[in-house]
């Protein structure tokens, strides 16, 4: 039944798309229903937001290292502006960079191409998803310029601070921020429906569950996690919006509400959200690692099952963000157990990735460097998480720079390294040209080395008792000494260097797109289906009469029965 339904939908989609062939620029690139165009829209919007988020980091890091200076390109930073900058930096990097790029852009681009479909199952819902996302981005950016300034209550937006303009002094900014976040969730619900349905129904003939490339699985598992976790937060966001605008008292203890309720709803979403962005990044890196080590993935099912186990467990760990928030102290014990348990599947996944290298033939291309860097850096994020998941140690570390450094060691590998890994790997497919390897490697080292110099000092500062979201540490004598300031300055200077090196990346993209060497269909000699069509793929991905059929799994590298060291999924025999 499902197959026939999918067929009917496919035909409808196709019929619909053929009507659009001769349309102009606007309908082709702005209101397109083609999954590849929508992917590009998400990719470029996400990258633009990433530049804005990076600019914010630059401004507040300058203020922290050199308090009171007039920051070039911004001016003096007031406490209100500082709070708004850190709040929106966090929100943007998670909701408007990590999610649109890793899930929406690469999900849209890769899923149909990697499973041999001509497009998403619901192309018009797909278009709507981007349009809602675009509106949410505009609302967020506008919220920075309204009266009172942008919202400054942290990306976690805890009430009562976030619930009342009397407390946060940014009545309008807070409401617009909340509306933007809610709209963004709606966009990803629409996109997620599409990813899940497409993977279930539109796979090429012969592609069984264990023949699906890992990145597609991961994006779909992430979409399922997102859909299951976001409901409570959307409900919570509506209540918070009512508190802000209609003066209701859902989170106001004086009127029978409870501020802790928001924290439960927020983190019930917020922790699975970490895995929502982590899993696609893992999927990307295992695919890239298999290709450039010419190795079959070590334990395909193991990776898949540990991803599912991580996803399920992630619904039972949320209160580790609230150990000292005033919840029943007995609850902390339960959540310490679940939090430490999640280290098991995650560790196993990383072991599998390391084991994949064994017996391989590793070429250090730029995408491979990014993939290996993901693993090397994410390990630091992983092991430092144990300190915070252990309730007793969290009493001290909670809300210090240790936490901040920890989650940047998870989110930076996920959102930045993962993105560069995927971008450099699939660039030849997306644009039909090879990227310049030398520039790619300069950019790689110019990003990775400064990155460690930003966040290792912040671990040390956190251990020294420096707490988060402070505009100027001079009011706290114990953490205002010169050794503390030196560490802050090292971090800021490293950030400046890292940001400067991003110019190399943009230069490389433009130059390679313009003058790069032609890529051909399969420059990496990879197995998955997207490499069997032209680069860039035409509308519909393959000629209608020539859609691929699948005969084997995606990681058949170095098979003993074959002379070539790779075996594309679509070759018979």
């Amino acid at each position: 039944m499902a197959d026939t339904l999918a067929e009917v939908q496919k035909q409808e989609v196709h019929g619909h798309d053929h009507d659009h062939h001769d349309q102009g620029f606007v309908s082709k690139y702005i209101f397109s229903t083609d999954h590849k165009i929508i992917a590009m829209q998400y990719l470029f919007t996400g990258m633009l937001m990433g530049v804005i988020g990076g600019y914010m980091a630059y401004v507040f890091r300058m203020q922290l290292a050199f308090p009171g200076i007039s920051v070039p390109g911004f001016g003096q930073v007031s406490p209100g502006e500082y709070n708004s900058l850190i709040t929106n930096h966090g929100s943007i990097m998670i909701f408007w960079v990590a999610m649109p790029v890793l899930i929406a852009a690469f999900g849209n681009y890769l899923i149909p191409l990697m499973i041999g479909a001509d497009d998403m199952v619901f192309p018009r819902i797909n278009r709507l998803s981007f349009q809602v996302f675009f509106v949410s981005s505009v609302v967020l950016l506008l919220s920075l310029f309204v009266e009172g300034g942008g919202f400054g209550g942290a990306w976690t937006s805890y009430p009562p601070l976030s619930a009342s303009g009397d407390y946060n002094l940014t009545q309008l900014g807070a409401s617009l921020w909340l509306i933007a976040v809610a709209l963004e969730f709606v966009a990803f619900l629409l996109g997620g429906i599409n990813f899940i349905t497409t993977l279930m129904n539109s796979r090429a003939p012969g592609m069984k569950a264990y023949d699906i490339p890992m990145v597609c699985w991961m994006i779909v598992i992430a979409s399922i996690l997102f859909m299951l976790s976001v409901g409570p937060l959307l409900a919570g966001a509506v209540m918070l919006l009512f508190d802000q605008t209609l003066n209701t008292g859902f989170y106001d203890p004086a009127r029978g509400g409870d501020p802790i309720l928001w924290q439960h709803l927020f983190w019930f979403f917020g922790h699975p959200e970490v895995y929502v962005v982590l899993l696609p990044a893992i999927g990307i890196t295992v695919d890239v690692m298999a290709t450039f080590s010419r190795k079959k993935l070590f334990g395909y099912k193991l990776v898949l099952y540990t991803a599912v186990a991580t996803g399920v467990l992630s619904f039972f760990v949320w209160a580790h963000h609230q150990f000292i928030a005033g919840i029943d102290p007995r609850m902390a014990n339960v959540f310490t157990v679940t939090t430490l348990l999640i280290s098991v599947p995650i560790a196993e996944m990383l072991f599998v990735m390391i084991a994949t290298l064994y017996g391989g033939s590793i070429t250090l291309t730029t995408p491979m460097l990014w993939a290996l860097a993901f693993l090397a850096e994410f390990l630091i994020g992983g092991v430092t998480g144990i300190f915070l998941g252990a309730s007793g140690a969290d009493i001290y570390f909670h809300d210090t720079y240790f936490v901040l450094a920890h989650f940047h060691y998870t989110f930076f590998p996920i959102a930045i390294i993962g993105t560069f890994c995927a971008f450099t790997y699939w660039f030849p497919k997306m644009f039909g040209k090879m990227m310049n390897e030398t520039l790619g490697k300069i950019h790689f080292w110019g990003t990775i080395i400064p990155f460690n110099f930003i966040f290792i000092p912040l671990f040390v500062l956190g251990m020294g008792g420096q707490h988060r979201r402070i505009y100027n540490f001079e009011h706290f004598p114990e953490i205002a000494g010169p050794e503390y300031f030196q560490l802050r300055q090292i971090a800021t200077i490293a950030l400046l260097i890292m940001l400067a090196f991003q110019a190399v990346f943009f230069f490389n993209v433009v130059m390679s797109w313009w003058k790069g060497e032609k890529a051909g269909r399969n420059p990496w000699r990879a197995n998955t289906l997207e490499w069997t069509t032209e680069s860039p793929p035409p509308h519909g991905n393959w000629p209608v009469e020539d859609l691929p059929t699948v005969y084997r799994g995606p990681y058949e590298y170095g098979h003993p029965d074959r002379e070539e060291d790779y075996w594309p999924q679509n070759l018979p025999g």
Partner: protein
Amino acid sequence: MLELVQASTYAADIDRLILLIGVIVGVWFLLAEGIFFWLIWKFRAKPGERTQYLDGTEKHVKKWITIPHALVLVCDVFILVGAVSVWYNVKQQLPDADSTIRVIGQQWAWTFQHPGADNELDTGDDIFTVGDLHVEVEKTYHFQLQSRDVLHSFSVPVFRLKQDAIPGRSITGWFTPTRTGEHDVQCSEICGIGHGVMAARIHIEDANTHAAWINRSSAATTP
């Protein structure tokens, strides 16, 4: 490294727990990164050499995953026991108090209510201060943590103590200072534009100094 003194009975316990976790995850981390970089070096592409075809389901290969997997679980148990015992001591039990103080957060200052000469809260001789908490060394204190407006977090790094304050509730906790000195009190939960100036000092005094401070302050506040 930035050294921070240990000034409460449980500060050393928390530091020991951090060290325990540090050693366990440190070993894992070095091991994993070591093997990882060794593999990258060892299996670098060499012309004419074929890769091995392993899919990770064979028993003799899979043990390289399953054994570390079991070891991770064992390490988790050690960390868990350490974490829960420290947590229980700091947050779940309440030793008898020699004295009780009240800590009140508001945008953007800490108010401290000391019990005064009669050592009882909410009596006429209570001493209210803004931004300065006075306690006596080696005495066990209960604190009642309250907030007048938004969330705050009462954080004393030298005690390794942190607890959020919630409007509408009074949260009780405890500490026993172990050495005299003057240290930072932070608000570690963002509470608005003045969050960065919501600082206070804790004065840990020996018995004589503390008694003198109570006398001086009572004289100043008694009508």
